[in-house]
């Protein structure tokens, strides 16, 4: 039953992505940037998904630390969300960091700039990669505790970096909630929202897969531990 539901969800995701791509390709050209603005159809949703999943990872880390002495099984479940959120977040963050310069080179003439959002995004990527490295190098039960603590540190660091860099720079200003000149034309808003939904659905699909994998890994480790106890 679960597998069928998951298959249906996967099919919906793919259908959404195809529909969103269709809308993105056929959206009208923009006044200022011509066709180059189309990056918002995959770059902005990927960034949103990445940041959301990093937040999920931080919540998982906090949950693990709070629950690990009271309810070990539940704590492991939170830890599974922590590592899944981190890993899938890194995948989407990589997409953001690679597609951004590809757009930036055509739009601004430079591949990179050290302003608020770019630096924050790069640092976020570095912090969560170091989180994964910590999990790989550490061993035993301390690994989960240490990496949960590191996850919390990383999560706090991000707003600090963002504030440190908040000088008007190269990256386009906020489109929503910015000044009078911001806001999106309806012909572009509709494809944008569909793309946002499509990438979010896809991200959740990958997150669920990674989470299932982690649970399976935990189960095998627990079975092996029990086996060695009973041997």
């Amino acid at each position, binding site marked *: 039953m679960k597998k069928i539901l998951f298959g249906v969800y996967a099919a919906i995701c793919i259908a959404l992505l195809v529909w969103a791509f269709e809308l993105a390709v056929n959206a009208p050209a923009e006044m200022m940037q*011509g*066709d*180059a603005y*189309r*990056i918002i159809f*995959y*770059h902005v949703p*990927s960034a949103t998904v990445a940041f959301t999943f990093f937040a999920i990872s931080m919540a998982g880390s906090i949950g693990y630390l709070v629950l690990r002495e009271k309810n070990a099984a539940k704590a492991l479940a939170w830890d599974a969300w922590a590592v899944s959120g981190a890993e*899938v977040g890194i*995948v989407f963050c*990589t*997409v953001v960091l*690679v*597609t951004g310069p*590809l*757009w930036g*080179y*055509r739009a601004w003439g430079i591949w990179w700039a050290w302003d608020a959002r770019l630096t924050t995004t790069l640092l976020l990527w570095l912090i969560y990669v170091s989180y994964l490295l910590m999990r790989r190098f550490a061993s035993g039960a301390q690994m989960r505790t240490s990496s949960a603590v590191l996850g919390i540190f990383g999560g706090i660091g991000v707003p600090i970096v963002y504030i440190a860099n908040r000088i008007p720079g190269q990256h386009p200003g906020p489109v929503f909630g910015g000044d009078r000149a911001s806001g999106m034309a309806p012909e572009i808003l509709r494809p944008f929202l569909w793309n946002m939904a499509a990438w979010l659905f*896809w991200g959740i699909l*990958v997150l669920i*897969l*990674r989470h299932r*994998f982690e649970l*399976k*890994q935990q189960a*095998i480790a627990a*079975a*092996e531990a029990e*086996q060695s106890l009973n041997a």
Partner: protein
Amino acid sequence: MKKAVAQIAALVPIALLVFALYSLYAAPAEPPRDWRLHMTQEQHDLMVAPIDHAFRVAAYSVTWAIQLGYLAWLGLKWSGLKRVAGRASNQN
């Protein structure tokens, strides 16, 4: 059958990446810096459009190369887990 699927799953992201790099490499040359002396805005836009298109194609290809590459890697690890679990339950 399974091996074929696995091989395709591994090759598609690599192919997408190569395609993206090729798209960037094969993009036409940019107009010179002093293009305003030689051509109108419309001519410049016509010259620049295929370059923008090449970059856009590269961006989409790279996006899917990363996404599918990650899924392929996850799939590989998953099948590795299945083997470990199979061995463990055989020992019981």
